[in-house]
């Protein structure tokens, strides 16, 4: 009987039968599988990236206002924009684009728009260049003067109003909007609106505002700041308003901005919003 060979002997492996496959041989199929998998991953990744790139190019080359009618592009844009919205926009506009009337942040799910008519191209322009954000191409034509301050307006001379005059203007707005109010005070308020306050200049003589400069409609019962109470309106008239929306032209890529515009457009158009936005929030404020 031959003496036993120690397992850790350098000669131990040589004592294995010749027909038993060595480690590399035994793992051969795994190497092949690994290579195959890697090729599949690379091919899949490349195909995916190429597809994404093609969609991004399509999105950029399309007429922005026509994107919502192209279901593929629309779906791609919304999916592309959602994480960006969460990162850059949700802190102000809310997780569900519902805005915040306490801070004058518009409800983006509402169909009413302060600037423009809410077309994708217009929304895109606002995201790119902002509102009072220091971008020369942005919306920056007017602010709401602070009529309860010694110098209400920085851009040109406007006379301050007296407390009673402000209250009269508020009555005028409430009565014009179909709410109960003091009609005599409203009559006085209408004169202030049309003369001393120069309110008509931005809000238009019919009080319906001017989307070209972001002057809100005052009789549609949609309020950017507060809920339309006399106190809220008094604050706006006496202390002034001038909300800011950042300009993202330097921060985000053009395709991301276009995708965001499509997302916001979808949210503000009810039927599209049902499928576009993850779960639309309550419509409580003013459309941006």
């Amino acid at each position: 009987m031959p003496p036993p060979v120690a397992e850790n002997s350098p000669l131990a492996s040589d004592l294995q039968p010749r027909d038993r496959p060595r480690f590399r041989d035994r793992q051969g199929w795994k190497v092949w599988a690994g290579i195959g998998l890697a090729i599949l991953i690379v091919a899949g990744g490349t195909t995916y990236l190429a597809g994404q790139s093609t969609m991004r190019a399509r999105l950029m080359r399309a007429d922005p206002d026509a994107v919502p009618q192209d279901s593929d592009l629309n779906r791609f844009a919304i999916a592309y924009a959602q994480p960006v919205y969460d990162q850059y926009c949700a802190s102000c506009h809310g997780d569900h684009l519902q805005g915040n009337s306490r801070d004058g942040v518009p409800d983006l799910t509402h169909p009413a728009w302060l600037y423009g008519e809410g077309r994708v191209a217009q929304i895109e322009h606002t995201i790119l260049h902002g509102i009072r954000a220091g971008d020369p191409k942005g919306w920056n034509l007017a602010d709401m003067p602070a009529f309860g301050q010694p110098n209400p307006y920085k851009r040109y001379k406007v006379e301050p109003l007296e407390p009673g005059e402000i209250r009269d203007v508020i009555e005028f707005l409430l009565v014009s909007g179909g709410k109960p109010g003091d009609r005599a005070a409203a009559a006085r308020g209408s004169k202030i609106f049309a003369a001393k306050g120069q309110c008509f200049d931005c809000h238009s003589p019919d009080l319906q505002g001017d989307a070209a400069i972001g002057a809100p409609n005052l009789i549609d019962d949609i309020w950017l700041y507060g809920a339309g109470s006399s106190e809220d309106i008094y604050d706006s008239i006496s202390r002034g308003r001038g909300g800011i929306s950042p300009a993202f032209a330097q921060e985000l890529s053009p395709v991301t901005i276009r995708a965001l515009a499509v997302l916001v457009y979808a949210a503000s158009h009810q039927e599209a919003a049902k499928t576009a936005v993850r779960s639309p929030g309550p419509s409580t404020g003013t459309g941006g």
Partner: protein
Amino acid sequence: MNVHEAVRQDAAPAESTSPPAAGGFWDFKRVNPVRSMVCFGLGAAIGLGIAGFGLFTAKGTVTHVVPPENVALVNQRPILRTDFIAQTETELGKPFGEATAPERLKVLDEMLREELFVQRGLELDFPGTDPDTRTALVAAVEQQVVADVTTHQPGDAELQKYFEENRANYATEGTMALHNLLLPKTNSSGPDAMGTMQQAAAALRAHTPLDDVVKTYGLRELVPEHASDEQFYFAQRIHLGDALYERTLTLNDGDVSEPVAAQDGVHIVQMVKNIKPLPLTFDRVRSQVLNDYVMAEKKRLEDADLQYLRDKADILIADDYAAAYEKNQVEKSAEAAKPAESSKP
């Protein structure tokens, strides 16, 4: 021959000096020099490809492909599609989708023309000579600071801190309704006038009707033109003048001030209603705090930018202005530091 010897004899051919035969290209069990070289070459080609892609697509490199976000490149400077769309809508006054192809091409041609002229203007150094261009550049740089500030929204904690540090700015504007009575210099002056007004004040405090007091002491009530009774504090300050306004601030409803001598005579004020400024809560003024915060940040960044530019610039000022300029700068720095120190909690 024992087992050990047998094993050595079997092992000997494997350890012979001749190299093992090379395996086939796809035989991963054996070393294959051709495969090694192919893998090496493949790796090198992929590396070069990645480097080349990065090199030729980086910003500033020449490309002959117009990226999808641009409508044209003029000497490699892009004309953005978004600008093209905005320009088309502005010029035509209708949505981009409604613009015909010739209309779009016309706008594109105009934009190309503009870009060419801008580039030529830069070559001619218009920013160095043309006042309008310089003004526009200064405004653009100033505004860029706001853009940097606004894209980074402050959190509630930052805003709350700013609010606490500037609480005085967040209060309702006080209002006053009052009677400003004057004993004109032409009627009486000196100690007599002060005595008369003290009697008039006493009478008012004793609830004598205002009209009776006016008639009895020969007074005149000053009513600002086109103004109603109730006025904001700032407006009353303008109407009353600083000295008289300071006296009225402490008056409660129905109080009568001590006589105050002014250039036009002696005044007393009877306060009808004094609604003092009330501090506003953070929640109520949050939007205003945000705007003020942004403006304050803008100012801070502007100053910092300017300081940085000054520090890195080589500014030489003529001898006849150098000393005065330096003194002025020191004074301005000291002045700017004052509010910052006083605003510390």
